[in-house]
């Protein structure tokens, strides 16, 4: 699974961090950081994170 975040859209709402803390977190300046290639078992949480992003900045690409 690949995760990309459009940082031009991201407004640090934190919804992805709430939905999938294993993948998303903030640094000390409230800037989002994420694991670009998390384990496939986290696909459900990643999908939820993408669905709750208010600015649709998160894209999840499952492995083929």
């Amino acid at each position, binding site marked *: 699974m690949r995760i990309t975040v459009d940082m031009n859209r991201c*407004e*640090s*709402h*934190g*919804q992805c*961090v*709430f939905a999938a*803390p294993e993948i998303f*977190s*903030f*640094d*000390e300046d*409230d800037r989002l950081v994420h694991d670009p290639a998390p384990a496939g078992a986290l696909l459900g949480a990643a999908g939820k994170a993408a*669905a*709750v992003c*208010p600015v*649709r900045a998160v894209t999840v690409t499952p492995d083929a």
Partner: protein
Amino acid sequence: MARQALREIVVVGASLAGLRAAGALRAGGYTGSLTIVGAERHPPYDRPPLSKQVLTAPAGPPATALPLPGGLDARRLLGRPAVRLDPAARTVTLMDGTRLGYDGLVLATGAAARGAPAGLGRPPRGVRTLRGLDDALALRAELVPGRRLVIAGAGFLGGEVAAAARSRGLEVTLVEAGARPLERAAGTVAGDYVADLHREAGIALRTRTTVTGFRAGADGRVTGVELSTGERLPADVVLLALGSVPAAGWLAGSGVATGGGVHCDASLRALRPDGSAVPGVVAAGDVARAPQPLADGARLALGHWTNAVEQGAAAAATLLATGAPPPFTAVPSFWSDLHGARIRSVGLPSAADETRVVEHDRAGGRLEIAYHRQGRLVGALTVGRTARLAAYRAELEASGTTAREPAPAA
């Protein structure tokens, strides 16, 4: 797995909650007929930018279309408001006379802007409200640099429009009935913080004051407002940002309890006044008044983006449930962007009886407040400290998973 009995589901409301409900129905395995009814002619759009980027983007309003969930396979009837529900016959009637039968019905009609209070008379031209895309485009056209804008109500919407208009070079006055902005939603410390942000941006903030009348020129256009202090303020444009009212008026006479929004049980099933569920009917989003575990089970209608998203999915799950549907216990959250400050909140700060200020650094642009009710955490709010919210939210999620049922609706 979808119940065999469901063959025809109607979703009334084509905005965020309705679309998310429709998407969740398909994702949940529903393969029957699906119809989405919308009052507005516009294709579904995103509302948060209406009080921000739509007003400020220099090159013209940005695209705000909401993407449709994949594989929706739904009939969409836009520009056709629902006007009547008959739960006995299981039909919804639209303004053009179309009658739709349903096995399952999602009520997601949202909310409308609260208009001028009774007693102010009919507002003259140039007095506006902001709720939909048409409102935002009309307001945008009025935001000409140098003009004087008076906003009644310094809540989230009023504050965001004030910030947007100020950034475009208008003279802005915020008139607020309370002692400070956002006091009911977020308490005194956050309210004072926001008041400072407004004043530093050059916005005139008038608290403990209300608009009591309008003045208009010979051409019928507003020229000013009268205040409760006896003063008159000149104004070229006036925005009434006095909150919203759940759009449940069309359900009058249907037998659904609708005071302050559609009364729901913990699984978002619509209720009659005696507290019994209306068969096959659920509600989601701004129109739904659902029990909130963080407010001791009191029914609240929350006009927040994430509430629409999560209730849309939960209402769909309730329709599709074969046994007892699970209670809706998602932790609320809201945000506001003001003068570059990112205000982020989880839980229900408005339900608190005590606020604990963890960090308060105006110069550094940082604020962290924990909200408690009877000693228990019910919410948190940060500015510039979103990273701290995740722990609060996890605690709220762990403690709030048992929804308590309130007494039957009055």
